[in-house]
């Protein structure tokens, strides 16, 4: 009992220490602030958005006005409301796809690194193959085969995102395997599964978490690309599908270019936020990096 | 009769202007090398030896800067030259055997071509083929198989690379070669062979050599004169015999004391108590006083004057200052 609470306390202390280091990086705080903004926007979309994003509330392609700050689309729907609702799909797809990729990648990486030998060779060949297969063509093929739904998109993005996690986790596992506490555990008769779950996994989690930040960014951009090609979930409003319709319906030549500009700015904003956070994490995890730059 | 002076450093100050303060790496240093001399510059690491060497090449890396003083090389004051003028003097008047010389070879160029290139850009040859021919000759001079000119650095052993670097330093027949720890990273036998090569070539060609090292037995064996550097200052200089048999400065005494004999097993140089000072805020007065067992009250207050001990020799220590100087102080 006591041991557990001490362990918990230590963990808590480490979190505090981590936060102190993190909050000293200005970019990290900015990134976190932007992310908080997006998250609140996604959660409270129905209350924030001025209109139902799917309802006709004005003429087609109205330029920005007091009523519609970003104007309307071809069907007279409010752009600002669509952008706000679009946050939901982007965040959902980004986070879930990255989580799934992290799970697959960690499992493959740990098994490969821990067992080594033939298992390692085979898994790494497959990992390398997935690394070189061009991402967008692959998810295009997969989403055509699987059919358009938001869950398929998440699955498909995870399928092309796990290999880099696997590589990372494998190399970390290789060094952990040689550490004393793992060796000791093995000598005392712990099973492989026990060692992986109790010793390897907790120690690879931080780097997996750090790598997830960038995976989320690329997942969000991939979703937007896929949706822009018209292969997204047609029932959900996302920034990518907005751009798809904007392009198809001739927004370029219309009176309301904000139909195109706004979703892109939203995408860049969220992407920058994640990049800032990842940059700050790098600084906290690798203080040497900072020293060297000086 | 005095032979020609190849290098004359006068009251040179080189400071590094870092974010955490000004590092006085070379502080009011004077030094002379005559034609054909092999002069050693000894001191602990961080004493400013390498900075002095880089200053002589006019290559002090930023945030470092030559603050004041003169460096007269073969009659030319290089401190006032433009970058382009300095470039032409580099290697033709003064060349360098770098510390960790094996890393000073470009990994993706044949070693012969690296020598040929120097000749080419200084206008000594007209094409690479001619340059390679001279490289072959130089290889013979330093005891390398001339066919090695076509090798890449990674195909050579440490000792061979070192010989390539020496050959390269001789390529333009300079007046002065600066050898900065030329034998670090080599095994003892190779070290001895390399040093013999340098000494032989030096005697044969009459090139002056400034040997920067903390390897005292080596200094005793090969050098003509010695400068002892401590915390950015020259604390004592003299003929090699004088420095080794009758050292004056307490620091020099400490150094020599740490070496049991000239031929005995080599010991680490630093057997003195204490640490060298932080050059951002060196101690007042004599910089050595915190580690000096002869320290007097005046040593803590005022920098020691330069006391001549021979025609070109001096020591900077209150122990040897004349009474009249002490009175004024």
């Amino acid at each position, binding site marked *: 009992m006591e041991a557990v609470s001490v362990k918990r306390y230590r963990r808590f202390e480490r979190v505090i220490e981590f936060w102190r280091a993190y909050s000293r990086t200005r970019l990290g705080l900015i990134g976190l602030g932007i992310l908080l903004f997006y998250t609140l926007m996604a959660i409270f979309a129905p209350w924030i958005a001025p209109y139902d994003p799917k309802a006709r509330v004005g003429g087609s392609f109205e330029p920005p006005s007091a009523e519609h700050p970003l104007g309307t689309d071809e069907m007279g729907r409010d752009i600002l409301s669509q952008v706000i609702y679009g946050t939901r799909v982007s965040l959902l797809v980004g986070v879930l796809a990255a989580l799934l990729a992290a799970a697959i990648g960690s499992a493959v990486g740990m098994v490969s690194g821990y067992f080594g030998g033939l298992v390692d060779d085979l898994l790494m060949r497959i990992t390398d193959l997935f690394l*070189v297969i061009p*991402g*967008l063509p692959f998810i295009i093929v997969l989403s055509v085969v699987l059919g358009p739904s938001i869950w398929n998109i998440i699955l498909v993005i995870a399928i092309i995102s796990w290999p880099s996690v696997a590589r990372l986790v494998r190399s970390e596992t290789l060094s952990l395997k040689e550490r004393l506490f793992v060796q000791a555990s093995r000598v005392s008769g712990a099973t492989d599964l026990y060692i992986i779950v109790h010793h390897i996994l907790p120690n690879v989690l931080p780097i997996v978490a750090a790598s997830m930040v960038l995976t989320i960014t690329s997942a969000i951009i991939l979703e937007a690309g896929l949706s822009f090609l018209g292969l997204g979930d047609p029932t959900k409003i996302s920034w990518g599908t907005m751009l798809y319709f904007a392009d198809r319906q001739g927004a370029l030549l219309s009176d309301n270019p904000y139909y195109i*500009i706004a979703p892109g700015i939203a995408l*860049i904003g969220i992407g920058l936020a994640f*990049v800032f956070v990842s940059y700050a994490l790098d600084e906290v995890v690798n203080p040497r990096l900072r020293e060297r730059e000086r | 009769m005095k032979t020609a002076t190849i290098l004359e450093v006068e009251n040179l100050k080189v400071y590094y202007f870092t974010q955490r303060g000004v590092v006085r790496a070379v502080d009011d240093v004077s030094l002379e090398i005559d034609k054909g001399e092999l002069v050693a510059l000894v001191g602990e690491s961080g004493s400013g030896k390498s900075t002095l060497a880089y200053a002589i090449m006019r290559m002090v890396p930023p945030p470092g800067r030559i603050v004041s003083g003169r460096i007269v090389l073969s009659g030319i004051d290089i401190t006032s030259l433009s970058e382009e003028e300095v470039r032409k003097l580099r290697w033709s008047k003064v060349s360098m055997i770098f510390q960790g010389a094996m890393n000073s070879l470009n*990994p993706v160029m044949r070693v012969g071509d690296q020598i040929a290139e120097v000749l080419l850009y200084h206008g000594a040859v007209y094409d690479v083929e001619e340059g390679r021919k001279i490289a072959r000759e130089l290889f013979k001079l330093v005891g390398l198989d001339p066919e090695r000119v076509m090798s890449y650095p990674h195909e050579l052993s440490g000792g061979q690379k070192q010989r390539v670097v020496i050959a390269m330093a001789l390529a333009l027949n300079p007046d002065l070669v600066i050898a900065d720890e030329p034998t670090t990273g080599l095994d003892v036998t190779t070290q001895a062979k390399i040093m013999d090569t340098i000494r032989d070539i030096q005697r044969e060609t009459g090139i002056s050599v400034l040997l920067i090292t903390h390897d005292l037995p080596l200094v005793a064996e090969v050098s003509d004169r010695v400068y002892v550097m401590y915390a950015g200052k020259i604390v004592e200089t003299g003929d090699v015999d004088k420095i080794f048999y009758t050292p004056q400065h307490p620091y020099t005494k400490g150094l020599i004391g740490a070496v049991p004999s000239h031929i005995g097993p080599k010991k680490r140089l630093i057997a003195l108590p204490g640490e060298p000072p932080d050059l951002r805020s060196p101690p007042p007065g004599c910089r050595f006083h915190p580690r000096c067992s002869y320290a007097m009250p005046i040593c803590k207050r005022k920098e020691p004057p330069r006391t001549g001990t021979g025609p070109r020799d001096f020591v900077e220590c209150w122990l040897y200052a004349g009474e009249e100087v002490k009175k004024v102080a």
Partner: protein
Amino acid sequence: MGLRAYVARRTIELAISLILFMALMFYVFRLMPGDPTAMLIEETAFTSEMREQLRRMWGLDRPLHEQFVIFMKNLLRGELGISFIYQKPVADLIFGRKMLNTLALLIASHGMALLIGMVLGVWAAWRRGKVLDIASLVWALVLHTIPVFWLGLMFLLIFAVHNKWFPLSGTITPARDYAHVLEYMGDYLWHLALPAATITLIRLGGDFLIMRNTMVSVIREDYVTAAIAKGLPEKIVVWKHAARNAMLPIVTLAGLDMATVVSGAVLTETVFSWDGIGRLLYEAAIYRDYPVLQGLFFVITLVVLLANFFTDLLYAYLDPRVRYD
């Protein structure tokens, strides 16, 4: 290890990757519900004659392992089937005008990005200053997050709609008569400008940063210090000694990043209606043109695998140390 042994090892690895990839494709295209040919019928103008041909070609009446062998043979022979939409052999569709258009786009944009990125990167590293450092970092971060298709749309908005400097779409002006071949080329380049600029700008950030960071660490190498000491002209020190050693990562990146390159091409070609294989892939996906989809996916991945292969060989050639690892 000599160069020959190295080539042999990499060739075997390439072959294994290729077989694994074909197995993956075989599996993916079997994922389609039911008989792969069945669902096609409802979706496209698809005759039963074509269906029979397809069934025979894919060997759907045979056991699975035989099907896989037939599948591999067809792919490797370049028998990629007949397009449902174009009613033409897929191979002819890919290896024709469309491939040339894509190559023109990619070579123009990547050549520019590489060239500008390299020169700027080398220059920034050599004259490293604080303002430049921060500016380049922010610039690269922003470029990293701009979706390529959105940048394309912005370029269209600014340079084709707002100012009518460049055309909105296509590779040439439709139904135009050309008096001279140069006139034709001029028209082609005029159409190429915006899509090429889009990809160039997106790639530039990465190329610049890689070059700059490698240069910064190479500059600290002793052999660069030595090159300065040798009194070599600054240009020679920078380009021959520093930049040449800093070139390896960017060369590797250019080759290994073919996967991203292709993805960018698909989106950019769609935005600008550039008649290349990226747009063909998009059309195949939208119209469920499975033979084209499958054939293109195979060809694209094969190109990427080969690009990786040759990059490694080039690396081994440029850096003699690699072979001896």
